[in-house]
């Protein structure tokens, strides 16, 4: 009886184990091994020990990349993915509360559009908006009011990539926060009104504390996904001008596949990505500790008595 139960467990777990093995463990081991070689476009496994990691310490560009990454991740997070997402959720839930659910839904759908747009199309749209000539949308408008055209991308590269990523990223927080806010029992809202709270006080003292788990979850989750995302940066600024918007993951990508810098340095690139994994892990552990996620796992995620 007992042995049959055990066999059953193995049988049920097997598919998942195989998938993890094939698509996670094997690539991870391969990456780890590759980071100990100086593999280049010839794809030969030439072991060089820890040379790649030592090279990282001497890489003068890397420290710059590191600060870029921090600025990009936390800038996007603070300005858009959490704060702007929250503002959108508050605004649309306020609209829905006033019996205008369709309007609220329309605005949320609008903010979801960028997410449904293929990255390359989205990138091209921004390239058009930010084009340095008068054909660009922004410069066209500036021109209309008599202003001189601005080369947005080369003059403000970091704000540009934060903005372009944030416009997409905000919708994730918006959806989560919106559903968390609307699932707060109406009676808390009413109680706060009767207790004398205005709209802002209600949000500060009642709404925000009640959605603290979704807030912390989105912060942690989006940190990790921003750390590894580079596709919009690649399309819009390519990491430039001169590394000013090169973040860690893009740096690794360019080392491996980038056409115009020294490239096809697969050994070095994999070493870079492994360090990025390490950074992500440290970030997760810090969040786990600071936000006390263990409590979140053992409690309902939204507090509604």
């Amino acid at each position, binding site marked *: 009886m007992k042995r049959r139960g055990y066999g059953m467990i193995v049988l049920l777990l097997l598919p998942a184990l195989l998938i993890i093995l094939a698509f996670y463990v094997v690539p991870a081991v391969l990456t780890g091994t590759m980071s100990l070689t100086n593999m280049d476009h010839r794809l030969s496994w030439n072991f060089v020990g820890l040379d790649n990691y030592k090279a990282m310490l001497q890489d003068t560009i890397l420290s710059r990349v590191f600060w870029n990454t921090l600025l990009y991740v936390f800038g996007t997070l603070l300005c858009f993915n959490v704060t702007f997402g929250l503002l959108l959720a508050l605004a649309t839930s306020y609209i829905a509360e006033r019996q205008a659910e369709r309007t609220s839904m329309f605005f949320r759908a609008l903010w979801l559009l960028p997410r449904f747009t293929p990255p390359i199309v989205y990138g091209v749209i921004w390239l058009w908006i930010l084009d340095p000539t008068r054909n660009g949308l922004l410069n066209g408008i500036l021109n209309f009011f008599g202003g001189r055209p601005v080369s947005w991308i080369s003059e403000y590269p970091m704000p540009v990539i934060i903005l372009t990523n944030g416009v997409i990223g905000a919708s994730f927080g918006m959806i989560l926060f919106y559903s968390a806010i609307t699932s707060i029992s109406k009676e808390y809202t009413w*109680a*706060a009104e009767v207790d004398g709270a205005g709209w802002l006080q209600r949000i500060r*003292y009642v709404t925000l504390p009640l959605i603290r788990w979704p807030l912390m979850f989105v912060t942690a989750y989006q940190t990790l996904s921003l750390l590894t995302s580079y596709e919009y940066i690649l399309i819009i600024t390519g990491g430039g001008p001169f590394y000013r918007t090169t973040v860690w993951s893009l740096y690794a990508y360019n080392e491996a596949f980038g056409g115009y810098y020294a490239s096809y340095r697969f050994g070095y690139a994999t070493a870079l990505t492994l360090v990025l994994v390490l950074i992500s892990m440290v970030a997760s552990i810090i969040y786990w500790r600071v936000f006390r996620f263990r409590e979140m796992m053992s409690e309902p995620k939204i507090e509604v*008595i």
Partner: protein
Amino acid sequence: MAAVVLKNITKAFGSVVAVDNISLEIPDGQVTALLGPSGCGKTTTLLMLAGIYQPTRGEIFFDEVMVNGIPPKLRNVGLVFQSYALYPHMTVFENIAFPLKLKKVPKDEIRQRVQDIAKVVQIDDLLQRKPAQISGGQQQRVALCRALVKNPDLLLLDEPLSNLDARLRIETRAEIKRIQQELGITTILVTHDQVEAVTMADQVAVMRNGVIQQYSSPEDLLLKPANMFVASFMGDPPMNLMEAELSSENGKSVFRCGSELKIPVPDAIAAALQSRRDREFILGVRPENLELLDEPHELAVPGTVFMVELLGRDKLVDFRFGEVALRALVPADVAVSQGEKKWIRPQAHRIHLFGKADRQAVPLAG
């Protein structure tokens, strides 16, 4: 403190009319109960008084000032929700202090007032706990404190006792009543429990489908129900209600109830009915107003005991007359057993009649 007047208040949610043209005058400093079955519009009425809902039509006055359109925070009402709605992230202290904090009352005064009110309902040793760490009865008292701490002009209680066990309910009932009398605060109590309404309120408004059925003292609800709904809703065990046709037999008038039961009509009632055209009524008499006699009596009907049910201090004695049942309530020590023959006499001045068509009470002098 405030006297409250509702004038032709209607509240519709789309096509659902939750409250239908009600008018009420709620006296200053007393307890008024809104009583009715689930879904009759009690909570909706309360939320309109709090300012959370705006009436679709009609006007609400606090002390002769119209308050339509005035937001909840400016109405100075205390509201205890059915679910209590204590903020789960705040301690008991912070919950009670919240209305004062929003009013920017100085910290020392807040501490003092919270402690004072917490002492009154005996939760002063729980102030540092979170709502999830105290019992339902304690939560209810915290909610009451939060409503009372700002000295409201009007206290609104939405089924405040429904989550409590029987004993705690009796205690809390008395406690609320005591606090209310101590502070002399105008209180509106929403409940679907008639015992709660009758024991706590100075006057009771019985509601059904958004309409007020009767607004009177608790005694009058039991003794002079305005219509058949109030008669059947109030009282436990429920009133015996049956169709009755006024006819005469051997020169005496009787109510024919079904094919087998004939109840002699007392003279006073016969006189009162003389001027009426209709002959068909609904007759109602409460189980406690049926006397069981061993001997025949001119106003009594003979019957055989069908079943006896012991209800604590009383016995419910069940008689059947064909399809009509009559239940009498007698003290538990009265000896009566199944199959026994008894004479049942309704107390003459406790017989209620309702029009068969309109179900409204037929006035019977006396």
